């Protein structure tokens, strides 16, 4: 039993069977990568985990509780935070406010009508958000509009926002997509550091083999909506089925 157990999940969009019969178990405090060629169903699977889609069949259990039928914010409150392919942050707000929002969500829950409370007096929240910004090396940018950050900093901020909620499972959807090599390496280092510093499970969907083999402890290969193999990175590298599914794409991507 892992922290996240996916059993027999299937999802059909009209005539397209996006997910066939996915069985997957992510062990606690591990880094688990899900790879696969385009159209393999990686994003569909991820959307089923966070409540954006409801699978037609099967079950998704997080820490012994089903996530199916719950809204995204409820699933987040259970301890799953998601990082998006293109960084999703509050562009109109300052970097500090971006960091404050998840801190409030963690402490006060999904809704608190604290319309009369003065935010500048909530030192507990300000400290926590400030610490997190320091950890992300963004303390000097706290008054900037989040929209004016560079792509790499936006990604950093988004990961920091997710971490400030102290999630038990961090889901990353192609976190280095569209990044230059230097930014990609920075992100890999950041994720390694996160892994070393805290008890956290990371599930990562990725196209870039360099990222996957730098980080993952276990890899599931998805092809045409079904898991092909699941194994350690070393075994996956030489696996004939994987080579067949990718037809050399792994070399291109790496």
């Amino acid at each position: 039993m892992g922290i996240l157990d996916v059993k027999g999940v299937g999802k059909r969009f009209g005539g397209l069977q996006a997910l066939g019969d996915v069985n997957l178990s992510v062990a606690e405090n591990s880094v688990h990568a899900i790879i696969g060629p385009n159209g393999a169903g990686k994003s569909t699977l991820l959307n089923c985990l966070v409540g954006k889609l409801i699978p037609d069949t099967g079950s998704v259990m997080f820490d012994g509780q089903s996530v199916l039928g719950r809204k995204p914010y409820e699933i987040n409150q259970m301890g799953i935070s998601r990082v998006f392919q293109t960084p999703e942050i509050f562009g109109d707000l300052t970097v500090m406010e971006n960091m404050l929002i998840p801190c409030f969500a963690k402490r006060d829950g999904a809704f608190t009508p604290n319309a009369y409370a003065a935010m500048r007096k909530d030192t507990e929240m300000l400290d926590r958000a400030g610490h997190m910004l320091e950890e992300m090396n963004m303390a000097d940018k706290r008054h900037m509009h989040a929209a004016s950050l560079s792509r790499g900093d936006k990604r950093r901020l988004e990961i920091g926002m997710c971490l400030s909620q102290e999630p038990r499972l961090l889901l990353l959807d192609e976190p280095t997509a569209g990044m230059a090599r230097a930014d990609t390496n920075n992100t890999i280092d950041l994720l390694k550091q996160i892994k070393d510093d805290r008890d956290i499970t990371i599930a990562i969907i990725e196209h870039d083999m360099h990222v996957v083999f730098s980080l993952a402890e276990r890899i599931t290969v998805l092809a045409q909506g079904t898991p092909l193999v699941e194994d350690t990175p070393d075994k996956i590298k030489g696996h004939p089925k994987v080579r067949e599914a990718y037809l050399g794409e792994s070399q291109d991507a790496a």
Partner: protein
Amino acid sequence: MFGLEAKDFRLLLLVALLTMAAPFILNPFPVDSGMAQFNAGYPDLMQRFVIFGIFAIGFNILFGLTGYLSFGHAAFLGVGSYAAMWMMKLLTMNVIPGILVSVVVAGIFSLAVGWISLRRSGIYFSILTLAFAQMSYSLAYSVLTPITGGETGLQPKVTDPRILDAALTGNAPKANLFGLEMGSSTDLVMGGWVFTFNVGYYVAAVVMIFAFYMSIRIFRSPFGMMLRAVKSNQQRLNYTGLNAKPYTLAAFVISGMYAGLAGGLMVAMDTQVGAERMFWTASGEVVLMSILGGVGTLIGPVLGAGAIKYMENILSKINKDILYEWFAFLPDGLQDFVITLVYPFIGKGWHLTLGLIFMAVVIFLPGGLVEGGQRIAAMFKRKKPSDNTPDGKTTPAE
């Protein structure tokens, strides 16, 4: 001070001072001068400034913070008015119960409307609110005539029960605050100037300052930050463990209560209400006020409300005769020509002027009058400070 940052407290103080001194500030011209028609310091208009200021402040909490554009807020204004009127008919001509009940009733009504309308966002939300407001207007105009008075509207009558008041012995019922009549005024004559201090205006002004204070608190609270987060990125909000729906609904109800408060005050001032108060143009007006003043800013909506009400009441009073007076120095043919050009923009054509100003603001000052003020302030900061501060209300007559 009052739990506010120094900067916000200064703004509140400034607004309080300006509203308290409004009878002086809005009457800059002597009564007998040709400019007296630009004086806005008469009770009726001053009351409208602050009441529509309240309406716009509340609307801005919804539109400015969450970005949800309601096109039906006049319905809450109207419901508040009817509620206050019935308090005057049934309980007492004292305005306090009326104002309180108008807030509560508008809050309940906006909870129901918001509950349904907030199932959609964007243009569909706007259309839903517009539909609700127009339904309310039609109901008030026809089916609900026993409650709303239909076409004629409602007014307090001598024969109303008014269980808390002693019987009125033939006197027309007048709105009051513990005996102090809303309509009573004191004139202060100083040289050529006459300044009018009206009880109703000061009651409404105090309520507006309180409403403004509450809106600062909301803007600076974690709740206010969440509302801005709703506008910025609802997807991220949902995936950050926050439920956007109750936040938007709370903002909708708060702004509905502000509208109800404005409606209640209107009745307290002029003791009458009609269904036209809920017509969609009234909903559109508050949208214009917010955008003209500066959406999402603290003071913007108040400025926008003031600017629009000033134009509506002052610009619309200018007629052809006054124009002939102004342009008397021109040769006859030219005079007629200039007046033909200017005439469509004044009097009944004041909407045309408003439209042009609105377009100019949206195109050149997307942040509204507040942005204009900031740009002027920045200009003076860079250069050396100068004495001749530009007054937005100077006229072309000179």
